[in-house]
């Protein structure tokens, strides 16, 4: 079923807020932080104007934001929040608790660099700091994807076989403050898609009291963590299924990865979020020139879609993995580590080149990406990769 298409021009954060509004969650507990502030701001307007039924809790910190989300979700409410950077870092403790308590909280994250030095611009350091927190992590290439991913996040999070929190990331300022055209859905279409939330348990069922978050000692902590890890891993097919259902509804299909012109590609760049769009331009240009280049977009970083990625890259000669965050003291970014580890047991694997780029919002241009492809071609000839390479940094 295709619904009537309505197009609007909207900034990334406002698109997130609009999606929140259409979800009409029971509780939003949030604290403003650049470059995510407009999500909370815009949502407060919806609350003030009576356009949502949400109980909005304007907390005094991000730590309390996630704490209140946890309390509300454990009470059986549909819960959403938004943050970025230092805010996500301040939530760190609670992120682990939200996922371990199996609470389907949905959070938009306008990805931003971490201090110090303080910087308000886009990179993935915040999200990568939270990569082991047990949340599902989805990254959005553009404003349309922010909007689309939030609805899917709600459906994925609340799926009875998942029941895990989801963070929807997008690049701070680059996407959060960029006005683009998106297609939006009618409210009832959204509500039909996400359905009514049926919590498995609730603190408000006072006739059947439960304790949420007991102490688990050496005899049981391990079992809880393995169960949680399994649930996260197991969410991968559900994320795909929801992406397909969303595609059937809107014509915009989503998978955990996206291959862009990888057929016959010998040189492939792997990237996430807004850089993917810029890279598409370069791939098109180089393909026109007859160069066998392609692009792999990682949309879902957690759970890590290992098999999908291997299948997409195994026939390439050289891959360039672009990380917008660093792992200081190591030899590549997080994406590089995971992809190269994933290939460890495969005889047939591409040469992998590690790149770190765009920290603190440093722009990445088509020229940068063209240069990466040139290097990948060189590496192919050489037969071995260069050391970790920083793109666009002054020496």
């Amino acid at each position, binding site marked *: 079923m295709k619904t009537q298409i309505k*197009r609007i*021009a909207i900034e990334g954060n406002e698109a997130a807020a609009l999606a929140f509004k259409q979800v009409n969650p029971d509780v939003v507990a949030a604290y403003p932080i650049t*470059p995510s502030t407009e999500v909370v701001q815009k949502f407060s307007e919806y609350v003030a104007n009576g356009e949502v039924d949400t109980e909005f809790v304007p907390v005094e910190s991000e730590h309390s934001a996630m704490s209140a989300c946890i309390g509300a979700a454990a009470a059986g409410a549909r819960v959403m929040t938004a943050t970025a950077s230092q805010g996500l870092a301040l939530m760190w403790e609670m992120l682990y608790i939200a996922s371990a308590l199996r609470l389907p909280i949905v959070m938009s994250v306008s990805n931003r660099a971490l201090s110090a030095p303080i910087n*308000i*611009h886009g990179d993935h350091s915040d999200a990568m700091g939270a990569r082991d927190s047990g949340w599902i992590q989805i990254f959005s290439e*553009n404003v349309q994807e922010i909007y689309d991913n939030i609805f899917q996040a709600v459906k994925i999070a609340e799926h009875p076989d998942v029941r895990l929190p989801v963070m929807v990331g997008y*690049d701070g*300022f*680059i*996407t959060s*403050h*960029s*006005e*683009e*055209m998106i297609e939006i859905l009618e409210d009832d279409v959204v509500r039909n898609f996400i359905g009514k939330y049926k919590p498995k348990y609730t603190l408000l069922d006072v006739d059947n009291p439960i304790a949420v978050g007991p102490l688990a000692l050496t005899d049981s902590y391990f079992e809880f963590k393995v169960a949680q890890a399994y649930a996260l891993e197991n969410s991968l097919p559900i994320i795909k299924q929801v992406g397909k259902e969303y595609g059937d509804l809107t014509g915009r299909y989503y998978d955990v990865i996206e291959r862009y012109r990888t057929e016959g590609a010998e040189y492939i760049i792997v990237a996430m979020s*807004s*850089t993917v*769009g*810029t890279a*598409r*331009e370069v791939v098109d240009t180089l393909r026109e020139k007859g160069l066998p280049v392609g692009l792999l977009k990682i949309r879902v970083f957690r759970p890590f879609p290992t098999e999908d990625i291997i299948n997409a890259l195994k026939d390439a000669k050289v891959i360039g993995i672009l990380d917008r965050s660093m792992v200081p003291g190591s030899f590549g970014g997080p994406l590089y580590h995971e992809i190269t580890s994933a290939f460890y047991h495969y005889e047939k694997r591409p040469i992998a080149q590690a790149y770190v780029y765009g920290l603190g919002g440093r*722009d*990445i*241009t*088509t020229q940068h990406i063209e240069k990466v492809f040139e290097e990948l071609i060189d590496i192919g000839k050489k037969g071995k990769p260069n050391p970790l390479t920083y793109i666009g940094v002054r020496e």
Partner: protein
Amino acid sequence: MKDMLEIRWHARAGQGAKTASYLLAETAMEAGKYIQAFPEYGPERTGAPMKAYTRISDKPIRIHSQIYNPDVVVVLDKTLIGKVNVLEGLPSDGIIIVNTTQPPEEIREQLGISDRKIYTVDATGIALETIGRPIPNTPMLGALIRVVPIISLDEVLNQFRKKFEGRFKPEVIEGNLQAIKRAYEEVKGE
């Protein structure tokens, strides 16, 4: 012309360049184009030099880097010339539109260039007369669509009304519409 029109707006924070860049994008979208608009963000406050960008295309816009080689530069505040390199990356056939009472020839002299097309309009004067406040963004938008006819004057006027109806008082909206129209008519090229 290439597939995509890229515009850079120069102004001081508070002069409405972001609004103008968005309004242009939104109007173009209504006219069936693909769009992208974004300001350059920093910690600067009111009065600081700032930039905003607009991309307009017949095809989906996928690129997310900043604009380095704009087709058009719009300068909302003439006093920025000499302090900010408004010509940066503007190719030899590029267009520059300046808010000033001076004729284009004088601006050319000041910029010290022989190529590129130069247009001027007294956007601040128009704004003062029509809106009653020295906000040059909407008249500059009027001048821009005259110089680069990507969208029609009527489309801009309609979009302005649509965007701000209910948010601004009717006389403010009317003033802005007048400002757009007057700048559209009064912009001068060499």
